[in-house]
C-alpha cells in the first residue's frame, strides 16, 4: 500500500497562503500607550476558525510523517512515536513556570532526576545534565565542558579531532567553542584510520569526537585502542549519541572509554522530530567532568527531596531555562515503557532490519557488517535523483550524498519499527529505481504535492516571506 500525497487541483495551483485568503489592517492609534511608543498599524491574516482548521488540515495532507509510511532516513532514527507520551507531556501538572521555587515543583524535578538516572545507566556515565535543547546544543555543551576541564587543569589544548564521516554539527560545535578542527580521513574499511589518528593527536588535542557505530553503520572495533591513544595524548573522548539506538543494551559509551557524550532523545527515545524540532540533547560525563556541567543540575537529598544545585566549576548555561522539558518528559515515558528488555530489543531489531534490508537491495553496499544503518552507493545514478524517484514509490528516501566517502551515498536506517512487509516494500522501491534511466529519475517525483523543486533558483533569488512575493 503506497502513500499518495494530497495535491490540489490545477485551478487552485496550491493551497493559498493565509495572507492570500484574507488580510486585515488594524490601527493601533487608540492604545493605552503614548503614540511615540507604539506602531501605527498591524496587518495580518484574519480568518475564521473553520477556515484555519481547513488550512492546516490541507497543509498537513501535504506533509510526510512517520505514520505516513517508511521513513528510513539514515542517521536520523525516524522511529514510531508512541501516542501515550504525548498525553504525559500534556498533563496540566507538567505545565509549570521554570522560575518556580524548587520546593513547589518536586514532581518536575523528580521526573528530571529519574531521567538523569536512566540516561546515566544507559550511557554508562556518572552524571547527566538535561539542559541542552538539541543534539548539537549537547555537543556544544560537551565540548565546552571538555574545554573547561582542560583549562582547570592548566592545559591549553586548542584542537578537536573529527573523522571525515562525522555529522556536520560536530565540526560546527567545536568551532563555536573556539577550537580548531582537525579532520581525520577514514581508513579503507570505513573506520577510523589508526595511523592517521596517531598523527593527529598530541599535546594540542582537547578531544576526539566519535560516532559509534559510525555514520556508515560500522562499529569502531578498535575503540579500546582509539581510547587509549586519545587518553595517552591527554585528550578526552567525546561520544556523538546520534547512533546510540543501535547499541542499547549491547554496549555503553562509558564502558568503551568515552568521557563525555550527548543523547538525542528524539532519535533514541522516540520523541517526535516535530518537522525539525524540538529535540533534546542531554549530556553525560564521567565523574572527573561532572563539576563542569551546566547549571543547575538536579539531585536528591537524603530526605528524598529534589533540589537544584550548581556544579562546582560549572560552565554556566547553554539554555535560558532548563531545556525542552516536554520532550524530556516524553523520553522518560518511553524508557520506562520499554525497560531493559525493550531497549535491548529495539537495538537488536533495528540491527536486524538494517542488515536484512541491505541484503535485499540491488544497489552496492560497501563495507559491513552493519549495525542500525548502511550506506548504499547509487553508482552511476545520481543519489539525489534516486531519492526523488523513491518518493513516487510511496516511501521516504534515505539520506543522500553523505558521507562523502561513499559515491552517490544512500544512507539508510529503517529502525526497529518497520515490519518485514514494509522492509520488502522499501527494497522493492530501491530495486525499481535502480533499474531506471536518468530521464525517468530526473523528471521525478510526480506523485507528490509539488513536482521537482528548483532549489538552486530559489537560493539565487531568495523570497523568504509573503511580503517578498509582491516585490
Amino acid at each position, binding site marked *: 500500500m503506497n502513500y499518495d500525497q494530497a495535491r490540489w487541483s490545477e485551478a487552485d495551483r496550491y493551497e493559498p497562503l493565509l495572507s492570500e485568503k484574507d488580510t486585515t489592517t*488594524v490601527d493601533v492609534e487608540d492604545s493605552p500607550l503614548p503614540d511615540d511608543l507604539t506602531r501605527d498599524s498591524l496587518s495580518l491574516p484574519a480568518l475564521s476558525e473553520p477556515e484555519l482548521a481547513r488550512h492546516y488540515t490541507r497543509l498537513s495532507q501535504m506533509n510526510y510523517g512517520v505514520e505516513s509510511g517508511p521513513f528510513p532516513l539514515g542517521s536520523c532514527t525516524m522511529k514510531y512515536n508512541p501516542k501515550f507520551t504525548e498525553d504525559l507531556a500534556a498533563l496540566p501538572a507538567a505545565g509549570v513556570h521554570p522560575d518556580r521555587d524548587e520546593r513547589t515543583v518536586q514532581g518536575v524535578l523528580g521526573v528530571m532526576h529519574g531521567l538523569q538516572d536512566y540516561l546515566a545507566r544507559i550511557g554508562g556515565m556518572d552524571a547527566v545534565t538535561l539542559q541542552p535543547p538539541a543534539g548539537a546544543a549537547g555537543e556544544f555543551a560537551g565540548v565546552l565542558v571538555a574545554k573547561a576541564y582542560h583549562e582547570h587543569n592548566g592545559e591549553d589544548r586548542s584542537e578537536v579531532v573529527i573523522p571525515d564521516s562525522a555529522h556536520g554539527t560536530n565540526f560546527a560545535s567545536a568551532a563555536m567553542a573556539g577550537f580548531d578542527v582537525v579532520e581525520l580521513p577514514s581508513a579503507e574499511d570505513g573506520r577510523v584510520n589508526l595511523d592517521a589518528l596517531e598523527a593527529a593527536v598530541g599535546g594540542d588535542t582537547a578531544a576526539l569526537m566519535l560516532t559509534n557505530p559510525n555514520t556508515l553503520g560500522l562499529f569502531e572495533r578498535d575503540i579500546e585502542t582509539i581510547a587509549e591513544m586519545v587518553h595517552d595524548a591527554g585528550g578526552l573522548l567525546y561520544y556523538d549519541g546520534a547512533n546510540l539506538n543501535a547499541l542499547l543494551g549491547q554496549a555503553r559509551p562509558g564502558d568503551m572509554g568515552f568521557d563525555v557524550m550527548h543523547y538525542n532523545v528524539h532519535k533514541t527515545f522516540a520523541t517526535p522530530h516535530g518537522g525539525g524540532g524540538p529535540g533534546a540533547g542531554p549530556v553525560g560525563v564521567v565523574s572527573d567532568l561532572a563539576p563542569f556541567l551546566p547549571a543547575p543540575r538536579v539531585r536528591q537529598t537524603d530526605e528524598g527531596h529534589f533540589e537544584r544545585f550548581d556544579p562546582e566549576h560549572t560552565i554556566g548555561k547553554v539554555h535560558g531555562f532548563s531545556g525542552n522539558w516536554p520532550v524530556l518528559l516524553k523520553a522518560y515515558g518511553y524508557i520506562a515503557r520499554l525497560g531493559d528488555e525493550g531497549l535491548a530489543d529495539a537495538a537488536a531489531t533495528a540491527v536486524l532490519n538494517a542488515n536484512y534490508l541491505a541484503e535485499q537491495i540491488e544497489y552496492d553496499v560497501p563495507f559491513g557488517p552493519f549495525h542500525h544503518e548502511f550506506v548504499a552507493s547509487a553508482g552511476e545514478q545520481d543519489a539525489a535523483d534516486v531519492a526523488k524517484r523513491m518518493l513516487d514509490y510511496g516511501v521516504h528516501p534515505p539520506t543522500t550524498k553523505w558521507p562523502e566517502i561513499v559515491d552517490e551515498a544512500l544512507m539508510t536506517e529503517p529502525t526497529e519499527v518497520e515490519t518485514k512487509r514494509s522492509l520488502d516494500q522499501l527494497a522493492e522501491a530501491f530495486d525499481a529505481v535502480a533499474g531506471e534511466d536518468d530521464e525517468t529519475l530526473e523528471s521525478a517525483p510526480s506523485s507528490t504535492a509539488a513536482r521537482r523543486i528548483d532549489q538552486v533558483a530559489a537560493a539565487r533569488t531568495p523570497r523568504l516571506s509573503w511580503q517578498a512575493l509582491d516585490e
Partner: protein
Amino acid sequence: MSDNRRGSPYAPHTAEDRGAMLDALGVDSEAALFDIPEPVAFDGEFGIEARSEQRVTEEVGRLLGRNDDLVEFLGRGHYDHYVPSLVDHLADRQEFLTSYTQYQPEIAQGFLQALFEYQSMLVELTGLDVANCSVYDAATALGEAATLAARVRATSGSRVLVPELMRAEKRSVLENYTEGAELTVDTYPMDDGNVDTAALADAMADDAVMVYAETPTVRGTIEEHLDAVGDLADDHDALFCLGTDPVALALLERPADVGADVVVGDAATLGVGSAYGMGLGLFVTREEFLRQVPGRLVGAGEDATGRRAYTLTLQTREQHIRKERATSNICTNQAWVALRTAMHVASLGPDGLVDLAENAVVRARETADRFNDVPGVQAPAHDRHHFREFVAHVDQPAEAVVADLAAEGYAVHAVGEHYIQICVTETNEHAVDGLVAAMEVAAK
C-alpha cells in the same frame, strides 16, 4: 527476544518474520549481527523495569502530583498565554508532529508553507526583512546575534554591551556563545528600569560590535529610549540587537523604525504556555545580513511545472554543508513550536493580537495600582509603562512575602531583598483578587 511481550512494544516482528529474516541473513540470532568486541560488550542490565503504558501513565501522574498546585504570577521572560484548542488539535496531526526537517521539499510542502507563513508574520511584526524559522530560545538567539555581529564586524571590535538588568541565565548563555568568538560581554547601567542613555553613550566605543536592549524589559517596563539606543549603535557602527516577543510587537514601535539590526526573543509567548521554560527563539534581521543568518530559512520557489513551491534555502550557510565554517551549529531547532506559534497568531488575527497586547498594558497597570493600595507595598517600583508585569517594593523581606504567598497558593518572583515581581495575563487574572487579599496579610 522473539517474545514481543518482553521486547519493545513498538518492534512489530512476529516470530515467523524474524526467523525468515535471520534465515535470509544466514544467522541464528541478532546477536550474531553485532560486531562489538567482547571487552566492551554490555550484558543488557540497566536495572530499568519495563512497565505497561497504563502503569507509566499512572506513575508519571503520581510523580507530577508532587508539584504544588499554585496560581502562577510568574514571568521574567517566560509567559503563559491561553493557547486556543485549535493549536493543539491541528499541530498534533502526525504529519506535522512526526515529520523530519524538510530536506525533501516535494513531500514537505505543508510544513514548509506553515514555516514560510511564520517567517512572514515576523517580518510584518518587526518590519525587518529576514526571519529564520527558529532557534532554541531567547538566550541562544541572543548568543547567535552576538556571533553574527562578530562576523559582520570581525576586524574592528570585541565587546558586546548588555543591560545590567537582564536574566543572569540569559547572560550566562550569551557568554558561552561569545567565548569561542573571542568577544567579551560588558554591562551598561539602567535608569529606573529603562536604558540609561547617557551612561550607555559613555560605555560605547568603537570596539563595541553589538548593543543589546530589551522591550519589555526583564522588569516588565516598556523601553522608552530605543531610538537613542539605535542612534548610538549607528554612531559607533555597532549592531543594535533588540530583545522582545510577538505579543509586544503587535503594539510597540516596530523594531525597524527604531534602528534595530537584529530582533531576538522568545516567540513561545504564543503557542506553548508554561512548558517549564521550553521556548522558541526569534531571529529576525536585515537583508544585508541574510547570508550570516543562523539555522533554517524557508524560501518560495517553483517546481518543474512552474507552480509556486516552498523549500529550505541558502543551506550553504548551515553546518551540514559548511561544517566548521557554518554560521551556527544549529540543526534540530524548534520548528514544531514555530508551527504552533504561527497557528496561535493566525487564530488571534490582527485584532486579537493587538487586544492581547493592549490588555497586557492595562492589566499590569491596574494590578500594580491595586498592589499600591496595600499597606507595606509600593507599586510599580519603576515609574514607567509596563507590559504584563511589574516590580513592587515590599517593606517586609521579599523571601518571606513570597513564602507567605506560596502558602496561600500563589507563586510570585523575589527579585531583590525588598522587591517582588508579578506577572498577570488572561490565564491568572481570575486570581488577582485572591492574590491582593493574600498580599494584605503577607505585607504586614
